[in-house]
């Protein structure tokens, strides 16, 4: 899932200064699961904003709406009338959600309420960790299902750097060395000999380095003959 974190309250409040009718758009998918921008978090934020404005004697009306996904236009269309009276929309969706909301509701100012962090997993209760950078050319078959691009701080393709110590990364003793994880996994699978292969330089065109990316599934295109 996309993992995100709510922006600091001060930053959100400041960005909403001067607006009276605020619609907070939660998102019902990834950010609900990682508890950054779901309906629950949006309602809590709405209460806090109302309370702050009341303390400052500044009028405000905050409404919370929760599309199933902000990244799918059909869900936005369904709720379009909910945004009608808004002076501003605070999107609690990921970066894709904020931008798609802004495209769909062109007359409205759409502000971000969360910081989008990474593609990751719920590692423990209340802890999410990064697993994938969306580089566009998966090599997990070479590395025992542990990604060196996302999980080695230097995206090394051919083993650990000199900073790997006791299974931890040089940048932080709380961060696992990705290559230790790869080695441990291949050891379990009795496939350590895979590591002798020199992995060639990556073609980064499949990643962000090739410019903004798109995926087209031709059989789904309405204008394509099947």
């Amino acid at each position, binding site marked *: 899932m996309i993992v995100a974190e709510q922006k600091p309250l001060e930053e959100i409040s400041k960005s909403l200064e001067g607006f009276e009718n605020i619609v907070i758009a939660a998102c019902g998918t990834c950010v609900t699961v990682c508890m950054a921008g779901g309906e629950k978090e949006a309602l809590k934020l709405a209460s806090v904003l109302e309370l702050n404005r009341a303390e400052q004697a500044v009028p405000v009306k905050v409404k919370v709406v929760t599309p199933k996904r902000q990244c799918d236009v059909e869900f936005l269309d369904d709720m379009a009338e909910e945004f009608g009276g808004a002076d501003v929309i605070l999107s609690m969706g990921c970066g894709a959600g904020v931008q798609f909301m802004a495209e769909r509701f062109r007359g409205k100012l759409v502000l971000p309420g969360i910081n989008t962090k990474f593609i990751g997993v719920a590692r423990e209760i209340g802890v999410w960790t990064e697993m994938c950078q969306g580089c566009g050319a998966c090599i997990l078959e070479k590395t025992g299902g542990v990604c060196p691009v996302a999980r080695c*701080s*230097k*995206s*090394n*393709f*051919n*083993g*650990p*750097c*000199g*900073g*790997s*110590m*006791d*299974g931890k990364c*040089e*940048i932080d003793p709380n961060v696992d060395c990705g*290559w*230790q994880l790869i*080695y441990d996994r291949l050891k379990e699978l009795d496939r*350590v000999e895979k*590591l*002798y292969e*020199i*992995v*060639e*330089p*990556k073609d*980064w065109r499949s990643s962000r380095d090739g410019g903004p990316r798109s995926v087209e599934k031709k059989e789904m295109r309405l204008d394509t003959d099947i």
Partner: protein
Amino acid sequence: MVIHLKKEVEVKAMTIEKSKLQTMLEAGLFTVTAEIGPPMSANAEIVKKSARELLDHIDAANVTDNQTAIVRMSSVAACYLASQEGVEPVLQMTCRDRNRIAIQSDLLGAYALGIRNLLCLSGDHQTFGNHPESKNVYDIDSIQLLQGLRKMKEDKVFMSGKPSKLPAEFFLGATANPFAHPEELQLIRLHKKIEAGAQFIQTQAIYDVEQFARWMEKVRAAGLHKKAYFLAGVLVNKSLKSLEMTKKVAGMQVPDYLVERMRKAASYEEEGVSIALELIEKIKKIEGVSGIHIMAVGWESIVPSIVEKAGFLPRPKLNEVVV
């Protein structure tokens, strides 16, 4: 060698002369190398002074590449300054700050300036340095860099596969840490570095000679000492604090008894030198060790006296080396 160009202009191609370091190692001579850390300024004189101090005491000096991710004078420029003073440089190149375009470009430039030795590194992560907010690159890793540069020599091509009429043909080096774990993984990595193109290996600083000797046994058992020259790293500590800090560095293994010995010493500086000399004495006798690489971070001025006390003088002149 004379090349006839289309315009029928005769040009003398740059002589692909081997470095002194490579020539000596191939001749079976024990080498002594040290390091020059470029300054955090544009002051050429600092590099030149370091080089002059080392001159005639070492065979080559590594010139670090923004070590610990702190902005310093470019290693290519500092290598050139050192070579002007008569010290043969070993250019260090990390994968942290440059993509394959910039690396190859800098290396063509370095080669054009007469630099012949190259040490390929991952580079310390930028969070350690003085620009922790910067973006890193890591387009390629150090093994991919070695492989690309070996192909550049053998096939006269860039990493893209496109040809170059006069590519950079460096004497290629890599690093190894005899104390890093898991050992099996580290040895696989060492194998790969040598297979990729490393002709010499500089090791992490050695304090635990017994552990290093066991590691060299494994290197010999795999025949790696026949495929690359192993230059053993020795760090010189000026103070107890410096030794304690060294012990904390990722990948360093400093036995407690050495810290205790330093703690009890009347003079930290004298004890630091004694420890280094004792380490050198033991390490140089280990089979498969082709040279000593002295690292005296922040205390470069001590290197000449260490070299002298270790009995490494006089250093051979290049014209005396018979291959």
